[in-house]
């Protein structure tokens, strides 16, 4: 009897989902705003990557909020994980293979992350992805060289400077050009070259530093507790 009921329930769910989903035309652009972004994104923001033109062009205020959420998450984690007792574990040294490999790869990881956030307006990627790659590089060092810690002051400075550049650029937009917060007041340049899209690449570089430092501080707190 139980099986019979679950079978009927399953059939109802499946029929209901098919009935709902088959009315949505697959692969077609439904929303007007999406069509608008695709048609005008390149000309209005100068970014060859449409996703970037939305994330840092049309909706950059939203992105500022996202960075703030990440910042709050890092602070919250710090508040939860802070313990008064300092335990001293015996740290086992990582093997020479891991240690050497990580030290060899670390500059390459940083270069790759810089490539990702500098080319955010041209190719897939951007500040968030680049920042995550930076943090993965530091995580490698944490795992391979136990006892090494990031420079906390430097980390905080790069985070603050990244956030400040974002907000200051937005505030300048209030007075120059179109006069709204985060207006793109710099020249847009030639499409699909590195120096194009006005303030978008600068914001993405700042975001890369900010997200990278935020994730670094999260990793640092986690490793301190482990």
């Amino acid at each position: 009897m139980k099986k019979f009921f679950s079978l009927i329930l399953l059939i109802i769910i499946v029929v209901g989902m098919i009935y709902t989903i088959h009315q949505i035309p697959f692969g077609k652009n439904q929303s007007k705003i999406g069509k608008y972004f695709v048609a005008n994104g390149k000309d209005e923001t100068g970014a060859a990557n449409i996703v970037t033109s939305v994330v840092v062009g049309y909706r950059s205020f939203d992105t500022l909020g996202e960075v703030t959420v990440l910042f709050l998450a890092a602070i919250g984690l710090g508040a939860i994980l802070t313990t008064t007792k300092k335990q001293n574990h015996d740290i086992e040294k990582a093997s020479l293979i891991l240690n050497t490999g990580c030290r060899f790869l670390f500059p390459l990881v940083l270069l790759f992350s810089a490539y990702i956030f500098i080319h955010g307006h041209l190719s897939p990627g951007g500040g968030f992805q680049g920042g995550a790659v930076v943090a993965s590089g530091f995580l490698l060092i944490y795992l391979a060289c136990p006892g090494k810690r990031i420079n906390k002051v430097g980390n905080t400075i790069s985070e603050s400077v990244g956030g400040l550049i974002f907000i200051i650029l937005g505030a300048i937009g209030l007075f120059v050009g179109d006069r709204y917060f985060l207006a793109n007041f710099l020249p847009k340049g030639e499409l699909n070259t590195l120096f194009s899209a006005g303030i978008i690449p600068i914001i993405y570089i700042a975001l890369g530093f900010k997200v990278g430092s935020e994730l670094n501080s999260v990793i640092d707190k986690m490793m301190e507790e482990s």
Partner: protein
Amino acid sequence: MAKSSVKNESSVKNFLYLFIFMMLIWLALTSSLHWQELIVGCVVSIVITFFLNSNYQPLGLPSLNLIKIFYIFIYLIVLFIEIVKANFDVAYRVLHPKMPIKPGVVIIKTSLRQDIAKLILANSITLTPGTFTLDIKKDKLLIHWIYVRSENIEDSTKLIGARFEKYLGKIFS
């Protein structure tokens, strides 16, 4: 006075080494010779080199010249051949109905001094199926072997390490 100038020269050399390495990777990533990409690549490489150069030198990367680059190519070919050979060997052991394996852990010695050379040797041994580097302690490598032919250190060094070490020694001399 003379000593410090020698030191300066070598530090400039080290700086250039990592800088050129970074620049080559940047060119490979962007695959473009546009002047804007080159300028930004230079700036990024200089910044990374400036901060990380002092950590990078103790790795003991080889100074490159034409002969060494030639040996690197030879090494890659040798490595490829060894990997193919070892693949067939392991496939034979897997498919044979009696499964002729004799697994065990052996120690081999290496005469390579640089950390990066030991890393490449260890990874080459791991890449060839049947042998697997577990750890490195000073000049000894701990290796898991699918068919232990010899428990003697000298003999297993000859069988596992020597084929790679011959060329690595030339590259890292």
